[in-house]
């Protein structure tokens, strides 16, 4: 998978690149609008990460340019701007997702995966991991081809864990992912433990391998031994 990251904050760009690289992801960095436009005219990407405030122009110009060239790349805006107007304008100009800074890299990663899935597999939304198979449309999970009883939230958690395979996920990152809009008001992460425990038990009951590892003091990790 080829990603283009348009971000002028070098430190943030490097961190994103470090997190995303591996697992068949290649990340290219660009720190200004002009080079970005040059790049998108020449190459095709699976996903573009776009910061709106660039030293030589507005990120919206890049969206317009993509439209003008009839490019169908999925675009995720990553911006410090959080007003509804900016969001709406971004979506109207063809962005697929909007992530407000600051965000967890794990969150960005699952959003990229979700976007690529939507773009590439038009409707056939199956995520598979060894003996686990998740159907995103019907919201069902099968372990060894046997359907298991699982809540929507647990599917969400499962996708988040699998998406960030082999990466340590802090409790706060999981809490923020699960609470969505409510995250800004929430200062309690106890519910993460309950969700992880439930998911673990359900997978165990279905004779699934125990992929969820506890990382001491920090959080959890989905690990394929």
């Amino acid at each position, binding site marked *: 998978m080829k990603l283009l990251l348009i971000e002028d904050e070098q*430190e943030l760009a490097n961190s994103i690149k470090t997190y995303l690289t591996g697992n068949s992801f290649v990340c290219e960095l660009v720190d200004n609008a002009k080079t970005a436009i040059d790049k998108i005219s020449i190459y095709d990407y699976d996903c573009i990460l776009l910061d709106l405030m660039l030293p030589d122009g507005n990120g919206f110009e890049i969206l317009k340019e993509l439209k003008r060239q009839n490019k169908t790349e999925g675009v995720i805006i990553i911006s410090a701007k959080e007003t509804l107007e900016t969001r709406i304008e971004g979506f109207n100009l063809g962005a697929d997702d909007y992530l407000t*800074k600051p*965000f967890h890299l794990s969150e960005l990663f699952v959003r990229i995966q979700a976007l690529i899935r939507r773009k590439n597999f038009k409707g056939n939304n199956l995520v598979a991991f060894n003996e686990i198979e998740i159907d995103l449309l019907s919201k069902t999970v099968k372990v060894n081809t046997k359907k298991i009883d699982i809540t929507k939230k647990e599917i969400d958690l499962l996708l988040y864990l699998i998406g960030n395979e082999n990466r340590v996920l802090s409790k706060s990152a999981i809490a*923020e992912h699960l609470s969505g809009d409510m995250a800004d008001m929430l*200062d*309690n992460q106890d*519910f993460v433990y*309950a969700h992880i425990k439930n998911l673990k038990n359900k997978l165990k009951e279905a004779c699934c391998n125990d992929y969820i590892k506890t990382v001491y003091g*920090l*959080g959890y990790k989905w690990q394929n031994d």
Partner: protein
Amino acid sequence: MTKKLLHKTSTVYILFSVILLIVSAPLFYYVTERLYIEETDETLILHKYEFLKYSLPTLTTAEIPNWNKYNRNNKIEPFKNSGNDTIFYNSYYDTLDAETEPYRELNASILIEGYPYTYSARINLVETEDLMKSIAILFLVIISLLLVGLFVITKRLSINLWKPFYKTLSQIEKFEIDKSNQPIFIETNIEEFNRLNKSIEKLIYKNTSIYNTQREFVENAAHELQTPLAVFQAKIDNLIQNSDFTQEQYKMLSSLNDSVSRLNRLNKNLLLLSKMENDIYNEKQTINLNEAIEKHFDFFTEQAKAKNLIIKTEMKESVAVKSNPALAEILISNLFLNAIRHNVNDGQVLVTLSNHSLTFSNTGQSQTLVADKLFIRFSKSNPSEQGNGLGLAIIKKIADLNNWKISYSFANNFHSFSVAF
């Protein structure tokens, strides 16, 4: 007790008029009387000189009865040794009116053909007393009219004069620094009021610009913090991927991670507050509160599970209010999470929704909270508690924006936050 400005001046005027009338009436009467008696006395003395000059030299003792017969008010009487020119009050019986009337009388010793006699001249005081009374009454009437006139004119004039002042006053009363309605002062032709208006205008302008600068500062600061926070967050997310940490280092990372999350939340809430102050959420819609509460009910139930809380609801069906939908959701979530956060284990949360109010009651600490500090930013009632001290300030701000009233009460071990709309 405060009174109106006009009331004060009127009171002074009335008091002055009454005192003036009370004091001036007897004084005036007394002075007029004195003046008149002096006048009468002078007339009497003049009569005496006329008598001495024109009548006495030719008068004989034999003519005295005749003289007395034809002169009613100038008489020659047997010598009474009354000294020279004694003037005094005397009363005579008037046969015409059949009553005793007051007179002013002058007695003087004279010699007629070498014999001593007493010359007596008198003037009736009745008519003059009437005249005097009339003058006094007239005078009093004029004074009264003058005072009443003055009073009325001043009152009318004052109302007109103070009109610009009252206009300015009502403008200032309507002024709110966080709203964009600047007061407009109308130019008057009175210098003092123009000065007043100008200084208030200047004051308001200055304060508004300071307020705006502060507001912008909070917003800009919160905004500018987002990028470094994003870098911070991303670095930690990457850092924790290393697998060779000691337990001690994991602990440190964990606490670092929690602090960044807290900082993020704090910053987002500050941004939310300043956005609300910038009137970004001004467009309102009709919202069904039942739906808004039920929308995230699962989430709240999940949160309540950690403390094993019982959530009870008493909701009237389809309660609709006008608000910005995003803000209404934030209000409900904040109140709900507040009731969960400050609860005790195995406690209760009671959600009551009626047509005019929404109340979240929860068990919690056994003392009542300090109500007047609750809704102020960063004034946490219990510093050891979690939470960033902005939740209730946000709730208050949202209530204010919708003209709702938020109140806190503590009864039967339940802390209640109620929004009246």
